[in-house]
């Protein structure tokens, strides 16, 4: 394998979406592959792939908040729920079209994000984690109690959307719809990260003090990241609702929020690739668990809670042993071959801080 060298001729080269033309070609090949995939993989995997596309949108949004801006949200299922229920209410009860309900779902989630984000983001990142956890519990309760709008524990039915003569009634058609939205949101995320706003996010994550010193308004950018992230989750929630055609309070529990976080940790923090890998991994996980059950000792097979345990163990193992996630592992592998035989493990050494960063007391 030969190493590619990049000749830098101007500064814009550094923020190009694709560094090499071959990269663009590979991505186009991937898109083509994904478009023709449903013809080969059967209906069940088309269903799984659609779910992956929807979850990948959430995990992209969460990665903008957590990976790039360094803030933790433990309640993304709440925004996912707000999106799904807003869309359900607007299409089923008000009678709006899906194409209006979808952005409205994103906006509704973003507005709730704004309300929670403004007070909690003035403080250190831990407050956001706790406040969003509280929000997740509140939203769960609101869904149960606000029966006029949400139909309480009985859940709501949704219809598959249509565009002109096309109705996205089969899973395969809905897969294309979700894939289109995913590609759109990937491009938005990629582009966001090369704007001054995106670079401000990263600056806030790396050092709040340094960011402030160069004139970045901390609270504003943190709230921005949070609102964008909530918008992603809201849109994905709407897509999820119309895909499942039925939503209930069970779909949006704390476990779901942790699942979203697990996606970005497993996939890779602060990377678009990682968000997708994580969504793929976490969506397949229940299937893997189901398959693995046959090989487990019989005493474990019958037990409920296997999935939650798997989430927990995977979270711990990845944070401890591979904090950069699957994408980080891939980068290391690539780097190993590119620099062979002079690869140094130290290149990817974790940087640790042994002094107090959060408080001076």
């Amino acid at each position: 394998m030969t190493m590619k060298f990049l000749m830098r001729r101007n500064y814009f080269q550094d923020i190009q979406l694709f560094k090499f033309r071959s990269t663009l070609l590979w991505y186009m090949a991937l898109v083509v592959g994904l478009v023709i995939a449903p013809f080969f993989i059967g209906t069940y995997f088309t269903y799984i792939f659609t779910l992956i596309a929807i979850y990948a949108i959430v995990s992209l949004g969460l990665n903008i908040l957590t990976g790039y801006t360094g803030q933790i949200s433990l309640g993304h299922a709440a925004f996912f729920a707000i999106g799904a229920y807003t869309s359900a209410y607007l299409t089923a009860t008000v009678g709006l079209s899906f194409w209006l309900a979808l952005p409205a779902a994103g906006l509704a989630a973003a507005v709730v994000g704004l309300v929670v984000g403004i007070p909690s983001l003035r403080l250190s990142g831990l407050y956001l984690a706790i406040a969003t956890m509280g929000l997740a519990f509140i939203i769960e309760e609101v869904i149960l109690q606000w029966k006029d709008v949400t139909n309480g524990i009985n859940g709501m039915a949704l219809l598959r959307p249509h565009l002109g003569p096309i109705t996205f009634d089969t899973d395969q058609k809905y897969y294309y719809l979700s894939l289109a939205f995913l590609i759109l949101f990937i491009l938005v995320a990629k582009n966001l990260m090369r704007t001054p706003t995106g670079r401000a996010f990263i600056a806030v994550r790396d050092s709040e003090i340094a960011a402030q010193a160069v004139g970045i308004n901390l609270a504003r950018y943190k709230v921005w990241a949070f609102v964008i992230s909530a918008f992603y989750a809201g849109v994905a929630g709407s897509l999820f609702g119309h895909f499942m055609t039925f939503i209930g309070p069970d779909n949006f529990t704390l476990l779901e929020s942790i699942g979203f976080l697990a996606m970005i940790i497993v996939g890779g923090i602060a990377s678009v690739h990682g968000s997708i890998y994580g969504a793929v991994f976490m969506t397949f996980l229940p299937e893997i668990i189901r398959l693995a059950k046959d090989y487990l000792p019989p005493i474990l097979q019958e037990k409920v809670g296997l999935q939650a345990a798997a989430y927990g163990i995977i979270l711990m193992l990845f944070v401890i042993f591979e904090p950069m996630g699957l994408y980080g592992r891939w980068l290391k592998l690539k780097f190993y071959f590119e620099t062979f035989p002079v690869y140094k493990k130290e290149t990817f050494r974790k940087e640790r801080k042994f002094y107090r960063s959060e408080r001076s007391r």
Partner: protein
Amino acid sequence: MLWQQIISGVAVGCIYALVALGFVLIYKATEVVNFAQGEFMMIGAFVAYTLIALLKLPFLPALAFTLVFMFFFGIFLDRVMFRPLVGEEAFALVMVTLGLSFTLRSVAGMIWTYDTFDFPFVFSEKPLALGSLVISTIHLTIIVSSVILVFLLYLFFKFTDIGIAMQATSQNQLAAYLMGIGVKKVFLLTWAISSVIAAVAGILIAPISFLHANMGFIGLKAFPAAVLGGFGSIPGAIVGGLIIGLSENLAGAYLTTGFKNVFAYIILIIVLMIRPEGIFGIQEKKRV
């Protein structure tokens, strides 16, 4: 009726205060925000239950054994899981404790199933009558034991060498280290003490709430308590816990259904809006 509600609110508040206390101790000493504190409580209660109800041990030896077990449980967790992560970003630590909480909950579910158990109560359940006021002995036990525990902890931190060393470490790790304090030992002890406090809280609350693998969710309400009191302040954790318990109980009695479950979080969001530093908190200042 009102007084009844207030007393049971204070009793529940004591539990929140104990859980919040354990979690603030860990946060102050090691900067880890422990989302598994409620699960420590659950594990403690289950261990005690197993000893009392299944192995037919008398209460006091069972209690002693549970506390010793939880002491070593805390030490084990610190040694195996958290020491390798010292100095890691806050984000990574939060994820590890979250993962730990889910794992512990599932493991407890696998061992003890997801059924609800009756936790045996040691004293007579005959309520105490003070004039027109009737106090359940369970509530009284919770309040008295919490006061005693907090007082013991106060003495420990104020007058013992190791307690003072722990205070010093929580103020400035590096300076404490340079003064010859064994920071690693302090961390171990912090985890151990927090686990023991959580176990006491679990044993106290189990007779009135329920004993269930998901009872750790009660522990999550320690977070609003800690924020209300001022994040990282020990008296704040206690006062915050009491206020949350009290107001939650009153909300359950006088507001429509559904409010009780989430009232703690509603308070949390209101506190963040009007006084984010909490009651005893000092505005955080950052050092470059």
